């Protein structure tokens, strides 16, 4: 079994294809959509977490590439600069996965990297530039 997060880029003409359906139906992969920015007539981006048998996963990726989609591993990471963070908590309600939480004893804002899906909203929301994206 593997569990991998990937970024799928669609060219304009392929936005209409039901690729996630195929990944499930033909390759027996389960999926979790972490981020989707898919608009008709525009290039699209889909961030997927795929889980399934290693062989099925490889076949699935091959299928995506054959369809003309660009596939990358999700290797971006958000990191918190604790010196810049003032522990205000303005980012906390914006985080869609509760990767940012307040420690009610120390009052510190804690960043739980494992829960982060790299949506990036904390980067623009932080008034102190404490959240950065790293590649």
């Amino acid at each position, binding site marked *: 079994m593997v569990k991998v997060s990937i970024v799928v880029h669609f060219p304009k003409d392929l936005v209409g294809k039901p690729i996630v359906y195929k990944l499930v139906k033909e390759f027996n992969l389960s999926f979790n959509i972490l981020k989707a920015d898919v608009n008709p007539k525009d290039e699209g981006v889909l961030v997927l977490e795929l889980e399934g048998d290693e062989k099925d996963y490889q076949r699935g990726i091959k299928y995506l590439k054959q369809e003309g989609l660009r596939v990358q591993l999700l290797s971006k990471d958000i990191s918190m600069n604790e010196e810049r963070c*003032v522990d205000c908590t303005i980012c906390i*309600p*914006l985080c869609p996965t509760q990767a940012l939480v307040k420690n009610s004893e120390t*009052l510190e804002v804690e960043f739980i990297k494992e829960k982060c899906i790299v949506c990036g*909203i904390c980067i*623009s929301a932080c008034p102190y530039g404490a959240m950065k994206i790293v590649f």
Partner: protein
Amino acid sequence: MRTIAEINEKIKKGQAVVVTAEELKQLVETKGVASAAKTVDVITTATFGPMCSSGIYFNIGHSKPRIKLGGGKVTLNNIPCYTGLAAVDLFLGATAIADDDPRNIIYPGEFKYGGGHVIQELVAGKDIVLEAAAYGTDCYPRKYLKTYVNINDLNEAVLFNMRNCYQNYNVAVNTSNEIIHTYMGILQPNLGNANFCSAGELSPLLNDPLYKTIGIGTKVFLGGGVGYVAWWGTQHNPCVERTEKGVPKYPAGTLSFIGDLKKMSSQWLVGTSMVGYGTTLSVGIGVPIPVTSEEVVSCAAIRDKDILAPIVDYAKDYPQREASNLGFVNYAQLKSGKITIQGKEVPTGSLSSLKKAREISGLLKKWIEKGEFLLSEPVQRILSSDSGYKIKPLQERKVKDGKS
């Protein structure tokens, strides 16, 4: 009970009993007001958050040959200063941004660098590029100047904030269907989040709701150094509706502060960027409250659950200056991380850092305990709830050319 002079005598001897406002509340809950008032000499309160009406004035010294910057154009690290003063006196405000900053042209603008950031870098001792263009006079012939300046080389550098330390503040929400970017942070559509900005029960003016001890001349912790209350702050509005305990239910009193920037620290004056809104400066302030009566203690015993704040819609009501709100919540609810608005559970975020406020109240306590910080006697009281003093909206009047 005891005078400020008596408290200062104890401070000098290292005998003053100092507690933070948070500690005082615990003490009152276990021992009661009378006992706490007997024991405690000073209560320290604090706040840390973005305060847009902050700025610095400074004197750069005369160049050779001389230049008259008054009426000219000056930038510090490309951020414009106010020059409408004498030859080499300048003022830089926290929200100033570069003339070529893209602002909100590509919405939402990032506002990565502005006056607040320059102030933080200057305080940190970094060299800042000053560029100036002047018109030249017989006594000040020079017309252009470009040089590094450093805080250590300035004659005076003074933090002067027209409005800080808001006594209570709005809880900002967004009832529209689209995300909005405000000075209260990003607000998600359909009541997606609720942002507040007060240290609540630790905040200075919520511990002295009727300004009985804090007045003009009160000595404070300001940006890591020492400052004074210079005046009441702009938009001071003491006559709003209050609870039975005298605590305002709306943004009310404000304070203006002044202090020596050279003694301050970049840890407590932090350049701040509000996406889609602009730049500002986050300021750390600690205000000591002398226990001169039992009443002082019973006011400072106020708890978060007894401090109410109005929920204001920043999509419609705030921008349109409509006075309405979506009800009230208390700070215990706000600090818990979620509140309920119109039956919907809404996560909360704070723009004000309670962690930093707690640190400041502890630092000020230490300064006083060590005898390094004496209290001052206010020289004038601040207009209170019985003054009739009120914030006025702008009354627009048609100008002859018909434009508005």
